[in-house]
């Protein structure tokens, strides 16, 4: 069964880049534009991994992470923070909350995949069978 990965970021650009990175792998991508939406999707879908931004409108990533860790059903889901902010207090606070890993923007797809691969098993999609070639007439 394909794993589920939830990307929570207010930037559609980042959600697209994250989705593109995981496209070659057997996984279902889920998206949310802020922490509040992210919690709803997480509760409904129980993703295997959450990629979480910090600064977002409505509910930021730190608040969402705090609420995830308070929820018995969701607290074991590994979370990778994906943010442009790597300030000391930010990193320490997020680490104390129990984040699995931290990736600073800008990032390469390889870096994201490497960190994700430490949290979940990524299986390459089987190559699509080649379309039958019509015999030459």
């Amino acid at each position, binding site marked *: 069964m394909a794993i589920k990965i939830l990307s929570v970021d207010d930037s559609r*650009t980042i959600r697209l880049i994250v989705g593109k990175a995981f496209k070659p792998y057997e996984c279902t991508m889920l998206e949310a534009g802020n922490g509040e939406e992210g919690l709803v999707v997480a509760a409904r879908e129980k993703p295997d991994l959450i990629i979480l931004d910090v600064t977002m409108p409505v509910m930021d990533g730190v608040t969402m992470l705090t609420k995830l860790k308070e929820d018995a059903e969701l607290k074991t889901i590994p979370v990778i923070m994906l943010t*442009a902010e790597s300030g000391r207090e*930010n*990193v*320490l606070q997020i680490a104390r909350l129990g984040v699995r890993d931290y990736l*600073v923007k800008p990032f*390469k797809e390889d870096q994201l995949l490497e960190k994700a691969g430490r949290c979940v098993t990524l299986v390459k999609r089987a190559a699509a069978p080649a379309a039958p070639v019509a015999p030459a007439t």
Partner: protein
Amino acid sequence: MTPPPDINQYKELARRYGLGSTPESVSRLTQLVARQDSDVDEIVRVIEKDPGLSARLLRVANPHAENEADYSVDSVEAALMRNGIGCALLLAMGTPLSLALIKTFQTMLSLKLEAVDRNQFDVLTGLHMRGSIGFVGKVVGHVYLRMSIPAAKTVAAGILGIAPDEVGGNDELSDVIGELSNIMTGNFKSNLCDAGLDCKLQPPKVGLSEDYSTPVEPGGGIERLAFRAGDLLIFVEVTANPWNE
């Protein structure tokens, strides 16, 4: 009360997560600027040790000069005396911002962006894409990111991995430029906060604009930067005023 940040714990986390660090001279300068009672001589020494910082400070202190021969302020000390510590703060902010922008282009577009002398290039005219992010706290200011519409399309296409003519409308363009502004600004915000200049970022404002004005906060300063990768030109302005309390 929040316990004081544990430097050693942070270093261990930074190593484990693979976090980059700000150049030592910039970190030191930011810490000195953050202290309102800091010794100007010490700030001068830190800047003078770094040729890049010295050159940028003199450029900021001589905003109307077209080249170094036109400088009326020609020493780091004179620049700080004339323009105040706010000038040094701009340097402290501009370095992580520039590094983040260059790294973003290298990482996400495989483009080698280089900082260039802004005076050597025609400034944008007419309608262009403008992203701006404000920051408020112990330091207040704005970062402006400007580029032509074709340049914005090239950047958006590169980041999204599509052809420039596949880039959607202004919404898609705005989202990419907004995220680029976020990445640049987030990196220098971390440096400011680590030095004690706590501040929060405001959501980016992005759109087409014909407005080239760059309002400067009362008592603050402005640094104008330019970057180039081939025909692609990116203009950045940073305005800041420390000690907003």
